[in-house]
């Protein structure tokens, strides 16, 4: 069939144009402005005076920025790898089931994912609340001391990590399942004929063939968890937000609570650069690791 290249290009441009226009207007343009604001002393609303790199220099000696950066890194460590592993294990389990049972179990694991974060917060507050939480009554039952989980530094991040994995694992499980289903059954049959054990089958067939999905899940998780905000904001409400500070929360606090748009923008730019660098690095690393096999 003959195609008209020029016409194709024209149609493509028309189809892409609405998206491109919106993308430029509500994403690229504000991003450029954010870079500009980060070099000024602007309040939340309105413009400010040029202050050079002062906002960035202050970050180096800002204890709260350090807390935020450390907590964000800690949260990423607590959730990205464990979250991926948990999702993979559950997906492997669900893949062994058949028919309605499989759909039923899958739905159960997927259910938390469709909950809005405010509902997630309420559910877990009912469980973990120091005075009235269900878990506290369980601890009482075993004669153990109650733990103010969301009110102490040591417990806060691990607890939010568990809640986040519980909340978001459903989506990763779905990706893994799709990956598992795309592995042709003939390969497994061949392996069975060759008397391969379960572990060997997993290591030699499932794992390498699933690798593209694994690295995708890993990358999605990494970017999402670097941007952690909602859970930390909700769970530290009426508590100690400054001890549980994470980077996006710090942007919010500087901008909306302290009316310092310029300093908030500097934090946001730092986070932006961090996300870009980390995700590019990580994707390259994973690709190299995958390519070696």
């Amino acid at each position: 069939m003959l195609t008209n290249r020029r016409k194709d290009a024209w149609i493509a441009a028309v189809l892409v144009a609405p998206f491109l226009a919106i993308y430029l207007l509500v994403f690229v343009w504000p991003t450029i402005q954010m870079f500009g604001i980060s070099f000024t002393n602007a309040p939340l609303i309105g413009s400010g005076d040029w202050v050079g790199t002062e906002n960035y220099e202050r970050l180096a000696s800002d204890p709260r920025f350090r807390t935020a950066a450390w907590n964000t890194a800690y949260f990423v460590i607590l959730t990205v790898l464990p979250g991926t592993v948990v999702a993979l294990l559950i997906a492997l389990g669900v893949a062994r089931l058949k028919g309605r049972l499989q759909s039923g179990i899958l739905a159960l694991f997927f259910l938390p994912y469709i909950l809005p974060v405010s509902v997630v917060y309420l559910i877990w507050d009912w469980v973990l609340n120091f005075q009235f939480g269900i878990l506290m009554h369980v601890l009482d039952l075993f004669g153990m001391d109650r733990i103010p989980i969301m009110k102490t530094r040591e417990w806060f991040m691990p607890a939010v990590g568990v809640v986040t994995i519980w909340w978001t694992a459903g989506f990763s499980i779905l990706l893994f399942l799709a990956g598992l289903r795309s592995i042709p059954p003939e390969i497994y049959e061949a392996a069975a004929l060759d008397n391969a054990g379960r572990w060997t089958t997993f290591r030699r067939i499932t794992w390498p063939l699933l690798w593209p999905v694994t690295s995708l899940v890993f990358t999605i998780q990494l970017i999402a968890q670097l941007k952690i905000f909602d859970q930390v904001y909700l769970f530290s409400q009426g508590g100690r937000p400054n001890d549980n500070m994470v980077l996006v929360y710090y942007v919010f606090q500087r901008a909306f609570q302290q009316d310092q748009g310029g300093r908030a923008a500097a934090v946001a730019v730092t986070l932006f650069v961090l996300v870009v660098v980390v995700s590019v690095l990580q994707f390259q690393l994973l690709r190299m690791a995958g390519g070696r096999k």
Partner: protein
Amino acid sequence: MTISGMLKAAIVATIGFAGVARAEETVVWWDFLGGGDGVRMKKLIDDFNAAHAGQVKIDATTLEWGTPFYAKVQTSAAVGEAPDIMTYHASRIPLAVQQGVLQEITADDWTAMGLSQADFAPAIWDAVTIDGKQYAVPLDTHPIVLYYNKDLLEKAGMLDENGKPKGLDSREGFTATLQALKDSGVTFPLGSVTADGNFMFRTIYSLVGQQGGELMTDGEFLAGDNGEKLANALGVLAEWTTAGLQSTYTDYPATVALFTSGEAAMMINGVWEVPTMTDLAAQGKLFNWGAVELPVIFDKPATYADSHTFAIPANQGKEMTPERRAAVLTAISWISKNSLYWATAGHIPAYGPVTDSAEYKAMEPNATYSSLTANMIFDPKSPLAGVAGPIFDVMSTYFVPTVNGEMDPAEAVEMIREELNAL
């Protein structure tokens, strides 16, 4: 014509007809009154609307208290989408004026409302005044008080002949009362919002005031022995925690629940929880209760208070019509003059003639704790002050570990001073 187009036309037509027929001015109203006091404000608004049918109608929306409210006000005023009238904390007025969020309440406005400086207490008038100009109309003052469970205190033998808790006059006396309650089997003699540094600010600032201390002198934070006074205040609370006399790591809702369920015998909280108690008591779901001025732990009585006020946002690029402004002033004036009902929400009305009235003086529990009005202290007048503001925020960070026994008070004061002066 599309369906939405027709709908729009219909709405425009309806509003147009209504406008022609009655010339009713709709006043858009935002507040942050989400608790028991919010219910009472809605009633006041309904009464206002009924009394001004055909002339002025308040269209009210309640938003989330604190940072969400103030961030929304600031951003919407900047694009001309703010309401015509809103509630505002007096403690946040210095910041609001700096941000250019508020319109001045002019001399003509005061005349139009039939209100004047003479109707308000000097401290409250001062709180809404910046550089000799007023930026809001005070509605109330809302201090914190000590709520107590009469049944539990009586059981512990700690109720005096007037039905008030014993030991309100000294640190030793009050600690003894708490200990007696503990000995009588009460789980938490004192319910405190120990998980929330923002809230603890009110209690701790009161205790600093009881020693004559000040947060800010000549633009410097915690100068001289003010730091020591803050450490003393923190020390008392930490001591109660160590002795097991106070609920630890308790957030706001849990504190109220501990008190209303009888697990905590006393509670330090804002007067805005009065409606919670009266409503529960009316349903027969509460014990005998009372509320008194905070105990004098140090040298003299002092209680932290803030004020709810009415303010008119400075909408950028959108001039308010004279008719609309008149309607707004009518609303403020009417609610101020009818704020006796607002007192049932626990607050102390700011409008003098109301608090001077015989009806107000007979109102309970307001009458019992009204003695504190002579001892009220307000936030320092600074753009950094105010509920959910930077000072609140810095201090709260260190209050939580200290009052729960994780951190030494002196160390906390050092950190607070450093961070505040770096703001």
